[in-house]
C-alpha cells in the first residue's frame, strides 16, 4: 500500500503516538473481553438514564409470538373479576446509545405523555424504557422478535399479557416528529380497538 506517509512526523512524537494507539487497541480488546465475562457484563453504569423501571407485571413473559404471525390473545377467563386494562408502550434499548435512538425514545415518550395521557377508552396507557442488555430483560428480544431498538405496544389485562404490536415504521418516520407521534398514537389506538 502506501510507503511515504509519516515522514513529516517528528520521530519521538511518532513513536509516542504509535505506542498510544497500540495501547488504545490493547485496552479496547481487554475491555471487550472483560465486559463479556459472566461476572461483568452488566454495564449498567453506562446505560442511559432512561426510565428503566420494568414493572413486575411487565416483566412477566409475554404471549409468545411465532415469527411473522400475529399473536393470539390469551382469552380472559369468562368469569374472571374485572382486571385493570393497561397498555404499555415499550421502548427497548441497549447500552450503546445513538442520536436516532434518543429521538425515537423522546418522541415515543412524548406521544404517550401528550396524546395518550388520559388513556384511551377504558385503557390506561403508560411508557416504559427497557434495556434488553440487562439479564432479566433479555427474553424480550425473542418474545417480540426484536431486531434493534424498537417500540412495542403490549396490552395487559391485569398481569395477563394480551395482544401486542411492534411499531416497525419508527425508524422511517423519525425525521418528522408530528407524523411519528401520530403513528404511535394511531397504532396504539388500533391495537386497543382490537378485541
Amino acid at each position: 500500500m502506501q510507503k511515504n506517509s509519516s515522514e513529516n512526523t517528528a520521530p519521538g512524537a511518532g513513536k509516542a503516538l504509535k505506542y498510544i494507539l497500540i495501547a488504545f487497541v490493547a485496552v479496547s480488546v481487554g475491555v471487550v473481553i472483560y465486559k463479556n465475562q459472566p461476572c461483568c457484563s452488566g454495564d449498567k453504569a453506562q446505560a442511559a438514564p432512561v426510565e428503566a423501571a420494568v414493572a413486575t407485571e411487565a416483566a412477566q413473559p409475554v404471549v409468545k409470538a411465532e415469527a411473522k404471525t400475529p399473536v393470539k390473545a390469551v382469552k380472559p377467563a369468562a368469569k374472571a373479576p374485572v382486571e385493570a386494562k393497561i397498555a404499555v408502550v415499550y421502548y427497548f434499548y441497549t447500552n450503546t446509545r445513538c442520536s436516532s435512538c434518543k429521538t425515537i425514545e423522546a418522541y415515543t415518550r412524548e406521544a404517550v405523555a401528550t396524546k395518550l395521557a388520559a388513556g384511551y377508552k377504558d385503557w390506561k396507557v403508560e411508557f416504559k424504557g427497557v434495556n434488553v442488555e440487562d439479564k432479566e430483560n433479555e427474553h424480550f428480544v425473542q418474545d417480540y422478535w426484536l431486531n434493534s431498538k424498537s417500540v412495542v405496544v403490549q396490552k395487559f389485562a391485569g398481569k395477563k399479557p394480551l395482544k401486542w404490536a411492534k411499531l416497525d415504521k419508527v425508524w422511517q418516520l423519525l425525521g418528522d416528529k408530528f407524523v411519528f407521534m401520530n403513528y404511535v398514537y394511531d397504532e396504539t389506538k388500533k391495537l386497543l380497538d382490537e378485541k
Partner: protein
Amino acid sequence: MSAEFWAAALTALWTGVITSVSPCPLATNIAALSYISKHSGSHRLAVLGHGLLYALGRALAYVIIGFLLVKSLLSAPSFSFFMQKYGGQALSPILVLAGMYMLDMFGRGFEGFNVFDLSKFKAKKGGLSSLFMGFVFALAFCPISAALYFGVILPLAAKNSAPFSLPLLYGLGTALPVVGIAVALDFGLKKLSGITGLAGKFEHYAKPATGWVFIGAGVYLGLKYVFNFI
C-alpha cells in the same frame, strides 16, 4: 416482473440510501470515502471502480446474511443484536491498526496487519481491498441498519420472493451516497488539477490522510461501542 416487484426494488434501494445518510454509520462512511478517494490519482476510472467494488462488498454481506436467515441457519433477533453489539467493537481496533499500517507505523516492510490491502491476493491496485472493506463495514450493524434491514428489507424480500435481489439492492443503496460523493470529488479534483497543474499533489496528501481518517474512525467507534463514552 410485476409493478409490485419494481416498487419493492425501489424501496430497497431507497431504504439503503436512507440508512447510509443517517448519523450512525458516519464514521465508517467517512473512512470508506477517504479510502476510495485516495485512488484518485492512480487511474481515470480507479475511484469509480473501487467505489463499485465497495458497493458490491456491502451488497454481498447483506445477501449472505439474508441467505443464512432464509435457510434458518441464523436467528434474526439474536444475530442482529450480536452484530450491533460486537460489530462496532471489533471494527474499532481493526480500523486503528489499518490506519497505523497505512501510515507505516509498523515499519515499511511490515505486512502483518495488511487488512485492507490483501496484497497477496489482490488484483492490481488492491481491488479486493475495497470489496473486503465494504463487506466488513456492512457487518458492523448500526441500530438503524439493523432495524431497516431486518425489519423492512427481509420481510419485503420474503413477501416478493426475492431473497437475493432486494438485499442486493439495499446493499448497493447503502453504498450509493459514498460512491456518489467519491466520484464527484474525483471529477472535481481532476478538473482542479487540470486548471492549477497540481496533479499528483492530492495523492501525496490523500494517502496519509486516509490513514488518519481510519485511526479517527477507529478511535471514535472504540469510544462509542467499547468504552461507551459517546
